[in-house]
């Protein structure tokens, strides 16, 4: 049995105008002990909502369906009151903007001690001692516990956030764009820290990011999300060398590589709006390999190899059309007009 099983998760946001936005549309995945999973996609694809859903962290105007199974129990099943006991104890989180994620009026130490006392891990002097140890584990002197968040640099705040995440020895750490606002060197420091902690403590990690190369270097497995759905799920190696969905292949081709002179391309158009019904494959209008079936029938996520699944009709066609990224069909120049002319609404 996996450590974490997500089964057919749906999230709807109620919009002010009375309609609904179907932000997460039936997401399922598993996570094993000590495994590092990347959740990748463009902004608005539902990746942040998905991991907030794992902890039940919704604003009031949300409805949710599906199961999030931790230790064999569906923690979503009984709503806020049950899920509260799991928070930070089983799953902890590192947020995107570390500045805003820490209370400006509380010392860093107190914020680390707080969940320990709440969940009965440690209290008083023992908890404070452990907070100091955790800070040292992430590379901050224990005396940093007495300081306020605004006295820390961005990188140190993110380290403190990670220390706070480890306070209750969770089995799973969710990291939402943990390095987005940081410099390359600090980003490397934080990623190294996360990988090191995951190896040492056997911590399972879900890394949410739009940065494919980061996932390729940090995670063994990744799920690519598009328009609220996982469209491909597999090892990072499979995703790069044997992509089975055109979006994955194109997404890799949009990021330049230091030592690879391949043309970088842009994907024309914009993702579909999630407050409307989508007919056919949601990626079809932007896809370079779409055919008739794609505009009428929505492809389901199908298992193709061991640990590799994708949602694309091309995989039903005998000859595999999905190729390596070097045969990118259009160069950037030609795409300008297409990207530009799409009006996004």
């Amino acid at each position: 049995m996996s450590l974490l099983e997500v089964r057919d998760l749906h999230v709807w946001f109620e919009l002010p105008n009375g309609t609904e936005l179907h932000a997460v549309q039936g997401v399922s995945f598993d996570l094993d002990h000590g495994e590092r999973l990347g959740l990748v996609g463009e902004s608005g694809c539902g990746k942040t909502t998905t991991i907030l859903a794992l902890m039940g962290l919704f604003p009031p105007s949300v409805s949710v369906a599906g199961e999030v199974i931790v230790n064999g129990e569906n923690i979503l099943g009984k709503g806020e009151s049950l899920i509260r006991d799991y928070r930070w104890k089983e799953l902890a989180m590192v947020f995107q903007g570390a500045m805003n994620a820490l209370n400006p009026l509380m010392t860093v130490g107190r914020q680390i001690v707080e969940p320990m006392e709440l969940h009965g891990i440690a209290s008083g002097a023992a908890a404070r001692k452990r907070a100091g140890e955790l800070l040292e584990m992430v590379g901050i002197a224990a005396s940093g516990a007495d300081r306020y968040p605004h006295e820390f640099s961005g990188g140190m705040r993110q380290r403190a956030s990670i220390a706070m995440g480890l306070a209750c020895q969770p089995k799973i750490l969710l990291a939402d764009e943990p390095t987005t606002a940081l410099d390359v060197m600090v980003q490397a420091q934080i990623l190294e820290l996360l990988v090191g902690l995951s190896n040492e403590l056997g911590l399972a990690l879900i890394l949410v990011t739009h940065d494919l190369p980061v996932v390729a270097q940090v995670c063994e497995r990744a799920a690519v999300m598009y328009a609220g759905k996982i469209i491909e799920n597999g090892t990072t190696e499979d995703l790069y060398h044997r992509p089975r969905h055109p979006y994955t292949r194109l997404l890799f081709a949009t990021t330049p590589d230091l030592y690879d002179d391949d043309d970088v391309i842009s994907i024309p158009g914009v993702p579909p709006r999630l407050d409307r019904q989508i007919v056919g494959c949601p990626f079809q209008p932007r896809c370079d390999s779409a055919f008739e079936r794609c505009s009428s029938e929505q492809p389901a996520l199908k298992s193709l190899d061991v640990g590799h699944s994708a949602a694309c009709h091309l995989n039903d066609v005998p000859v595999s059309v999905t190729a390596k990224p070097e045969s990118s069909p259009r160069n950037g120049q030609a795409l300008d007009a297409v990207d530009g002319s799409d009006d996004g609404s």
Partner: protein
Amino acid sequence: MRSADYVIKRLAFALFTIFMAITINFFLFRVIPGSAVTDLARVPNATPQLRHALTVEFGLNDSKLHQYFTYLWQLVHGNMGISYVNQQPVFPQLLNDLKNTIPMVTIGTVAAIIIGVFFGIVSAWRRDSAVDHVSTSLAIAFYSFPPQFLGLVLLILFAGTLPSSGMEYALAGVFGSVGFWSRLQDIGIHMVLPATTLCLTLYGEFTLIMRSSMLETLGEDYVLTARAKGLRNGKIVVRHALRNALLPIVTLVAMSLGWIMGGAIIIEFIFTWPGIGWAMWEAVSQRDYPMLQGGFLILAIAVVGCNFIADLAYFKLDPRVSE
């Protein structure tokens, strides 16, 4: 280091403001054409002897600049002149009045803050519920009532049940001395209506500000972090949101002190409370300019002093201030 800077800065500002108040006071009364002190003909109660005494003491025949420095010099020595009405020095009279004003205003304001903050939190927490709607509507209504209206309504409502004027039962002390506790009780009963009026006119604004400040705080990411940690709503509000949300209230109270004092003037006027507001109104109606001038100055100093205290409180509450 930095904190010393902050305190020095605020103190300098307070002193500068008091200096400005003194200066404006001087100009208002002596330099503007037709202004009061130099034009004693407008003053009904100024006897020739008084006129002469003032002329000597404040050098009213000297140049304006000289007068200004004489005025400053006299102020330093606690001399604000002599009342035209009762020929007594102004300063001790005003201090005595201030002594009566402070308890009434403090009780009314503190009660308003406590009630306002409480309903503000409840409103924000139960946002869009019936409780929120009732509390917000009441707050807007009370915010809109001018104190004179509210005071008069209370006067009519409680005519006969609660004393409507003065600070003590008129005959208290006439038939032998009164014990401390019974005197306190007497003053307390007299204070009910004025303090309640002040409290009711103030609490609405505190509620509204607290509500929006709380709502804003509840939208911060650290509240989401607190939720992710597994904290219950009550604890999130008390531990994480409250202190952050209270910061604007400190500023607000400091900023509205001037208004609170203004409200106090009217309330003292309505309920004949023998405080500084009442004294100022009396001075206005009797053209007792030294009294008016002194009253304004003392009010200004009191407000500036309270502002300085609020600055220090803010500094205590927010570790980021000294940055």
